[in-house]
């Protein structure tokens, strides 16, 4: 216990170790938060639920925080639902007149991706009729459209050719925000009011409307080509990356260490066998085999994890451990142990292996990022887990959808940043642990 607290005190003297540990704690916190707030089933639904889940998001929109760094603010995405508003209902002969007023502030310097109205109507036979007008801050009133509403109806502003004609050929998502008298190319800022005048022809008919303004930014992480919120993938990628990295690193280092110790101690044919197997394993193209397993058997992350551990048992670190064990084996204290009559397994477990634990802990910590990146690498090759959203899969989607060519850098850089953060955190902590636990390096 005293040794443990001394190690802890040693660690606290290195700022990089504290930084690394804090980042790891933060990532663990994010993982816990994610698993609790977005349960697995919900995450899967959010990630592969289909257009019904994502229709309120714009495509490839940048994250909202980019506005903090821009002089010209990009329009944000917002939704106005008529259920949240005061409806002005007037009973008229043979039906009702419903007035819905949707005010919104527009104080951005460029135009939205699209404006869309989604209607759901309750009626028996006769379709309600809607007139849409927009009141601009400079007190003009633009007639948007008049149409009959079906049970579900979508009105997309920019696809309405009559509206385009009324706006002198300007595409509506830009035209309605511009002043027709001036040549200015920037939208007029201020409060706009969208008025929906609904006429129903049945006494109990009702209409519910949802106005979505698809901005250029959405969510804290942005969206991808399928309108999915990248935040889900970034959040869920954290626990997956951490558990994959930790399990793979733990599985390979511990088995490798025990095998190296047994080989060195018993020497002879067993040691040669272990060395030969290690050599075969070194020559095996590890990634090619993982690729084959992914392509032919299963792309499940847990199968890949199992194969990774299996192929890693006789990994290259056996060579490192062996060289240390060979030195330790010749130490006087082992001779002393032999002299007092300690058995083989006792010497291996009590005298050999503890000597290597200082070497093992840093190695374990520095190995974690290797496996975190391995998962990402496989995803980049298109062999990511078919169900789970992971960082690697976000990067793959981004690369294969031309994010690099079209300038959607956030799409690649966000998951890449998280990967980098994870990698650096574990590596920084591991390096300091290496210095502290490795007595040979301590004097240097």
């Amino acid at each position, binding site marked *: 216990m005293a040794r443990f607290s001394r190690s802890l005190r040693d660690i606290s003297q290195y700022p990089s170790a504290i930084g690394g540990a804090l980042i790891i704690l933060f990532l663990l916190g994010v993982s816990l938060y994610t698993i609790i707030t977005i349960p697995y089933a919900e995450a899967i639904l959010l990630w592969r639920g289909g257009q019904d889940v994502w229709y309120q998001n714009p495509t490839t929109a940048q994250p909202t925080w980019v506005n903090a760094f821009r002089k010209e603010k990009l329009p944000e995405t917002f939704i106005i639902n008529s259920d949240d508003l005061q409806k002005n209902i007037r009973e008229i002969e043979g039906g009702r007149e419903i007035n819905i007023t949707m005010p919104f502030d527009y104080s951005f310097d460029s135009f939205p991706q699209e404006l869309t109205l989604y209607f759901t109507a309750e009626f028996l036979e006769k379709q309600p009729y809607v007139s849409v007008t927009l009141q601009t801050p400079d007190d003009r009133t633009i007639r948007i459209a008049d149409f009959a509403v079906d049970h579900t109806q979508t009105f997309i502003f920019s696809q309405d050719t009559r509206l385009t004609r009324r706006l002198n050929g300007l595409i509506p998502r830009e035209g309605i925000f511009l002043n027709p008298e001036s040549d200015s190319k920037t939208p007029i800022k201020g409060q706009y009011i969208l008025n929906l005048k609904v006429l129903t022809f049945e006494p109990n008919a009702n209409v519910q409307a949802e106005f979505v303004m698809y901005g250029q930014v959405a969510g804290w992480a942005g969206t991808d080509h399928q309108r999915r919120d990248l935040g889900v993938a970034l959040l869920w990628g954290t626990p997956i990356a951490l558990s994959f990295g930790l399990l793979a690193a733990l599985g390979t280092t511990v088995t490798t260490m025990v095998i190296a110790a047994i080989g060195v101690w018993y020497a002879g044919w067993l040691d040669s066998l272990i060395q030969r197997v290690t050599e075969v394993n070194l020559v095996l193209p590890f990634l090619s085999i993982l690729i084959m397993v992914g392509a032919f058997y299963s792309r499940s992350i847990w199968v890949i994890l199992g194969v990774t551990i299996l192929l890693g048992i006789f990994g290259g670190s056996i060579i490192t451990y062996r060289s240390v064990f060979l030195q330790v084996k010749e130490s006087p204290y082992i001779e002393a142990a032999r002299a007092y009559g300690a058995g083989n397994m006792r010497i291996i477990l009590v005298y050999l292996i503890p000597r290597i634990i200082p070497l093992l802990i840093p190695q374990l910590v520095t190995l974690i990022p290797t496996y975190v990146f391995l998962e990402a690498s496989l995803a980049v090759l298109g062999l990511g887990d078919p169900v789970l959203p992971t960082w690697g899969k976000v990067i793959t989607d981004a*690369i294969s959808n031309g994010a690099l060519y079209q300038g959607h850098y956030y799409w690649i850089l966000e998951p890449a940043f998280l990967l980098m953060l994870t990698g650096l955190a574990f590596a920084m902590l591991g390096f300091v642990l290496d210095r502290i636990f490795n007595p040979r390096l301590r004097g240097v």
Partner: protein
Amino acid sequence: MAELTLQPEAAVPEVQPGKKVTNPVSRVMRYVLVRILTLFATVIVGVYLTILIANMGGYVDEIQRAQIREEAQQQALNNPSFKSLSQEEKVKRIEATVALREKRVGLDQPFAIRSFRFLKNALTLNLGWTQNMTSDSGSKQVRNIMLERLPATLLLFATSNILLFFSSIYVALALSRRYGGWMDKMIVSLAPTGSAPGWFYGIFLIVLFAAVLRILPYGGMVSAPPPENSFDYFVSLLQHMVLPVVAITLSTIFLNIYNWRTFFLIYSSEDYVDMAKAKGLNDRVLERRYILRPTLPNIISTFALTLISLWQGAPILESVFNWPGLGGTIVQAIGLYETPVIVGTTVVFAYLLALTVFLLDFVYALVDPRVKVGSGS
């Protein structure tokens, strides 16, 4: 420090009592021969395992069978002399063709026997023809595809590895003499960057230099169409090589320098170095003869592991950079279920890895006086 003083092996020649000391040249030759044989055996085992995995419990055979059947049926449909035959006769003939072709490919034999024949073919890269892939020159022979892609991979990785080795040694040696300086501290704090693989830096480099600054190409090996004049070709090749080489180098160089610097520091605290310093030898000689020399074995064994991990990363790096090498080929082949190409690429990678290990072993034996070359231990 007790441990350090216990290591005078470097100075003491290791002659084991009772062993005949033979001529060093013949010992080295024997060592080399034994190493070649063991490594070849290693490659054989590795390739056999690859074949077992590539066959995926008969899955690939099923694909091949289905393909043979479809081809036979297609041929029967297109053959005018088949039209006059009865339905049963047609089926019988198709079955006969299928059986004949399966026999030709060897599908009628049990897998255990077939796998050994396949092993022989794989080791000699005699892997027949592909179904869908072609080499750039239009050949469908697997060996031609392999041989066409190999030089690109070798060029890229040899360049980066040589660059990596020498620049790391140079910087590490220089740093070990300036222990604790700002350069040293910077390298130590940059060492954790080694945890990310080359392709990862590749993406950042592409974003920066290809997408934003537009000064280097996104990927590929030469610009399209390839320049005709050989000087322009060379310049274009160099331009395309910059980003992948930098990506590979970035991913390992700081870690390498950090590790090697530590080795150098350990060895420069040995008594004989102090002795040499006291003799008044200059820094150059001190570094080369008293520090670098005893450290080389350690350096080479860590470099071997670095090289192996770099080879393993080739498929991704090449596909990120669209480099027309073997690694990119394996990714392509997987998409097309081209088992012969997958196995072929894996075999070539196994050969490359074995060759790397052998070369480094050989160098290790040359530089480490403690390795009892050929003395049978």
